[in-house]
């Protein structure tokens, strides 16, 4: 059976992609941010996952307001970068883990989830940036992906606890998948930021740092919070942080934190990263 080897969390701010594209990686503004991801990249190189399940939200690029899915799961052969206004970015397309995607969709339906099933869809910075942060900018991505889109823009957005539940179903799908492939799950989005209204520019480094602790040690608390508490604590767009709960829900109760990184502000956002392994099957490496 397939195996879950790690849970990764990261912000997916579009400016990160723009900074890479413009060659700003080593400028004073960006270097400390990018350097913080080196241990995460090393972890990926060492553990060589075959499949990355990436949870993110579309930002008005693949979906318009006419039809907003609460959860959408991709099962395409290929996911091309979408034109967000500046033309599609010059990064390789993502190859889909097609067969696992369908298996996951079957498992979701059997477990009373109601996903939209996407055989053809383009993807925005929500998945691009996390992939670049952990895998760099290869000529071809060395992993196949399963994109999970969550509506965190138009209300009603899903409950945090529903995201957490979805993670449990994802774990079940991985462990019932008859290959020996190695899976990582990436929760993306956040941390605190607000782009709209007079509170624009709100960041909450203290809450962000607490979140990076709690996601490892007390995820039930985070899953029990209301949507409104997310907005209050992390800002109107920071509420997308609840997508990390899908990743966390796929993991065991007890995890080991391998790496962790926090930087503020990346553009207008508190930016964070975490690498976790299930404690029961963790590699012998020293914790961060």
């Amino acid at each position, binding site marked *: 059976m397939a195996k879950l080897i790690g849970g990764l969390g990261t912000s997916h701010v579009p400016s990160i992609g723009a900074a890479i594209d413009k060659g700003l990686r080593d400028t004073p503004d960006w270097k400390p941010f990018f350097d913080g991801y080196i241990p995460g990249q090393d972890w990926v190189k060492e553990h060589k996952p075959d499949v990355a399940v990436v949870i993110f939200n579309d930002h008005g690029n693949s979906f318009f307001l006419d039809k907003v899915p609460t959860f959408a799961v991709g099962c395409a052969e290929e996911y091309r970068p979408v034109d967000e*206004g500046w033309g599609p970015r010059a990064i390789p397309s993502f190859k889909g883990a097609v067969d696992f995607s369908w298996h996951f969709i079957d498992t979701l339906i059997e477990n009373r989830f109601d996903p939209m099933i996407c055989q053809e869809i383009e993807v925005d910075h929500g998945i691009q940036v996390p992939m670049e942060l952990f895998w760099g900018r290869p000529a071809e991505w060395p992993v196949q992906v399963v994109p999970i889109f969550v509506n965190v*823009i138009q209300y009603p*957005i899903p409950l945090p606890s529903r995201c957490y539940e979805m993670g449990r179903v994802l774990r079940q799908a991985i462990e019932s998948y008859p290959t020996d492939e190695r899976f990582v799950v990436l929760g993306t989005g956040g941390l605190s930021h607000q*782009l*709209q209204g007079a509170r*624009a*520019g709100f960041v909450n480094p203290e809450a962000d740092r607490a979140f990076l602790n709690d996601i490892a040690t007390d995820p039930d608390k985070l899953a029990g919070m*209301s949507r409104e508490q997310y*907005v209050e604590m992390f800002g*109107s767009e920071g509420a997308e942080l609840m997508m990390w709960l899908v990743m966390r829900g796929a993991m065991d109760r007890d995890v080991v934190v391998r790496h962790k990184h926090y930087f503020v502000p990346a553009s207008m956002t508190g930016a964070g990263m975490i690498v976790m392994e299930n404690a029961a099957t963790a590699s012998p490496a020293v914790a961060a």
Partner: protein
Amino acid sequence: MEEKPGQDRIPDTPLFDRKRSLGGYRINKMAMGLSRPENREAFKQDESAYLDRFGLTPEEKEAVMTRNWREMVRLGGNLFFILKISAVDPVRITEIGAHQAGMEHDDFLRNRLGKKV
């Protein structure tokens, strides 16, 4: 039942609820259109005509043409859509933030984002 978000009970934090999604439909659809190169060209060539294609009201048109971000958001514009205007007419996201916050840009960077400017 938890309290429903989307009713602006958090100060200065407009949530994109049914009211805004409906009210901002035209502005957001117009902005979504800018993800196609031919529409970006049309916007550049004759912004007013491009906006008319999406049936914007005079109030909405005025907000877009004067790059009044605060007003666009008040009218239901959502940042993820209207940000595409900045792909055609460049402006930094932090300037858009500062405008909505009613602050000078440097002041915004310093006092909201904690930057040393």
